[in-house]
């Protein structure tokens, strides 16, 4: 299967790549080259894992035309429960890791089932579960910070390297590839997209929209739980702030990456690239010691800009296609024998 990108997406990826390169160069220069130092690079990629994962988690709900406001809360509760189980209740640290995934999947499935059964808008359902989960997270850890010294073997994974890159970043990329393959090569993935694109048509093709919604929310929760595990493994300690700043970036990555808000599309590569951009903005904040509010301002503005630009490009492209057709038509009137040449040109 050849990898064929729609022209518009291809150019969007180029813009993202260019942004990443320029951003990295600017950061490199302004930090006097420190940014490209081994320690700084290690940190950069280590903390890129979470933006990628939560971007993917949000992308999956967007694919079915839903959204998941509870991603941060799911990740936070996962990490906190794992920390409490290991530090306070004496469980094996690796069991803590497993708990993150289970909590994420269960919370996500709960979102999905609530959306399907109550037929209440996903926005409201996940807003409610988010609030509930934040309460649970607070109840678990209160104002404590539980040190990662309690789960040294897992924390070692958080700092480990594979091929010179942080292991958790590599794992995040593997997750991204698996998600991409699932959307391309499994009927479940295609059914999610079909449900998100046109519910009625999906029903008539024998696709269960309820199943699509449940699976999408479940998968989104699972990946959010996985992001919770990554935080559990890589942060020096776990407290109630874990997941607190995930909401905006979870939307930023897929939207900047080219995922439609109305459902029916995914863009794994775009989402991963956009997560790079989000991470760069965060690095810039650290480099220039800006208030976190500036990050939100920049990312918010970029999201708006992306949506507006996408719209503009769509309009331009339909105009361009029309002009080509007009040339073919005019040719046919003026010089019938040349019409074919023009038609060929137009089809290129």
């Amino acid at each position, binding site marked *: 299967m050849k990898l064929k990108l729609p022209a518009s997406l291809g150019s969007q990826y180029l813009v993202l790549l260019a942004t990443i390169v320029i951003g990295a160069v600017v950061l490199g220069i302004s930090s006097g080259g420190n940014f490209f130092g081994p320690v700084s690079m290690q940190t950069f990629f280590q903390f890129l894992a979470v933006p990628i994962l939560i971007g993917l988690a949000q992308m999956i709900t967007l694919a079915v035309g839903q959204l998941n406001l509870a991603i941060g809360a799911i990740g936070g509760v996962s990490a906190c429960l794992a920390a409490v189980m290991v530090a306070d209740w004496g469980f094996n640290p690796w069991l803590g890791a497993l708990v993150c995934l289970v909590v994420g999947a269960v919370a996500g499935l709960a979102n999905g089932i609530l959306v399907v059964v109550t037929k209440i808008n996903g926005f409201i359902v996940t807003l409610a579960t988010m609030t509930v989960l934040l309460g649970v997270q607070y109840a678990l850890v209160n104002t404590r910070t539980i040190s990662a010294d309690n789960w040294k073997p897992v924390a070692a994974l958080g700092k480990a390297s594979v091929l010179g890159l942080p292991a958790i970043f590599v794992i995040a990329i593997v997750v991204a590839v698996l998600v991409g393959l699932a959307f391309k090569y499994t*009927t479940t993935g295609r059914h999610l997209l*079909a449900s998100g694109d046109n519910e009625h048509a999906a029903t008539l093709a024998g696709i269960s929209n309820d199943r699509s919604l449940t699976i999408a929310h479940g998968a989104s929760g699972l990946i959010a739980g996985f992001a919770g595990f990554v935080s559990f493994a890589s942060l020096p300690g776990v407290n109630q702030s874990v997941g607190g700043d995930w909401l905006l970036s979870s939307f930023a990555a897929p939207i900047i990456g080219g995922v439609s808000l109305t459902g029916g599309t995914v863009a794994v590569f775009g989402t991963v690239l956009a997560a790079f951009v989000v991470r760069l903005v965060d690095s810039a904040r650290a480099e220039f010691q800006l208030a976190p509010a500036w990050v939100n301002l920049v990312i918010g503005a970029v999201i708006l800009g992306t949506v507006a630009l996408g719209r503009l490009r769509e309009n331009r492209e339909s105009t361009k296609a029309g002009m080509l057709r007009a040339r*073919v038509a005019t*040719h*046919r009137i003026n010089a019938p024998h040349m019409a074919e040449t023009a038609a060929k040109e137009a089809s290129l």
Partner: protein
Amino acid sequence: MSTPILQARNVTKTYPGVKALDNVNLTLAGGEIHALLGENGAGKSTLIKYLTGVHTADSGSLLISGAEQTFSNPSESTEAGVGVVHQERNVIREFTVAENIVLSRTPKKFGFIDWKKVNSEASRCLAMLDFDIDPSTPISKLSSAQIQLVEIARALYTDTKVLLLDEPTASISDAEAAKLFKVIHRLKDDGAAILFVSHKLDEVYAHCDTVTVLRDGKTVLSDAALADHPHDEIVNIMVGRSLASLVTPERSVNTAVDPVLELRNVTTTAGHGGISLDVRPGEILGLYGLVGAGRTELAHAILGRERITEGELLVNGKPAKIRSVKDALHDYGIGYVTESRKEEGVFLDANITRNIAATTWGKLAGPLGVVKVSDERALVEKYVQELGIRISSQDQLAGQLSGGNQQKVSLAKWLAADPKILIIDEPTIGIDVRTKRSFYELIWGLADQGLAILLISSDLAEMITLADRIAVMDSFTLAGTVENTRHYDSMSQDVIRLIHAKAPSH
């Protein structure tokens, strides 16, 4: 006689307040094309949705090849060999043509989708229709008629023993319909049972063997040989009373008057080249062409939704600068009754008053922009009466009306804005015989009042009935304009000849 392939017995389906199907019976035998006829709202689509597992019935039974079946969802009916093309378009716009065709049963290898097979299977189905399109084209690039063909191809994908076609020819050209009928006859010869729903009775008589007629959810004629029931009789059975034959009024257009709308050698961003045409007050100019000829797009260019890059658009002899539908309506008095009433013509969730008055709020509004409800209601009532729109009250939601009445609401909305030029795009798609006639009379009436009408239609018979002149389009150019003599045979030959004269040689 052998066992019928599909048998529905005493099917009853009740919606709150309406008995959509009342003890309906239908028998489809193999090697037979069976017409299902009835006016809008008679229950045809509901019956098809029952037969394909989209809806369940309150009572009744369904037998496929003699074995009782209950379909609780559409995939079960597909598995049982029932293929269907529903009346409304049902595609996944983000997917390719190929994937839409195989969606109900995507080919897999080792548990994963086999994309090569997806495309080859789709090509096989498209080839049956002689539909020359790359299966990897995204659906969003297709016109609505092309999408219709994709849906037909989809119905042919699974081993279809029964093919249910709900108005498959409503939005495709005669040439495409001819291809479709070729396929239908081939399936028939292979022993499939075909159910064919259409409002075009000519087609029905040309291709169908047997007929069932529904009226108000009841079977009023059951599994009869079509040859035993002539055209007029069938119409009478459908409407439940005798209908006088349609009389075309004497039409005369004053050719001394200057055209009110004129295009001179127009090129557009939609892709038209060198289009010249004109419409006089009181004239009905037909715009005919095959699917994809650029008719609707030309209307969009006139309305400013596409830009005119070369040539001139004149209204009342003066060059017009139209940048939006709003400009077109308010500055130049051009109204546009859209092709797809559900998507563009009416606000389904709004009441009748709001729907019809929507174009007039600017005019009705007082100094503070407030519209008096009583003014609104009075204006709307006038059009409800004039057009004979059947509603229980103005508070009824447009979505609850039948297709024909929705179309009238859409028309009323534009008439309320008092246009001088009216573009009417495919006015009678999916509309029953009786409503169609009242529409024809309405359109003649509007022309008699001095309105210039640009009529877009894919139905050549309708074109020849209504238009004074017919402009034939092909591939975004004008193939020519012919005076309408109203002799169907010679006119249709003229029109088809124009299209073929322009077609590029291969």
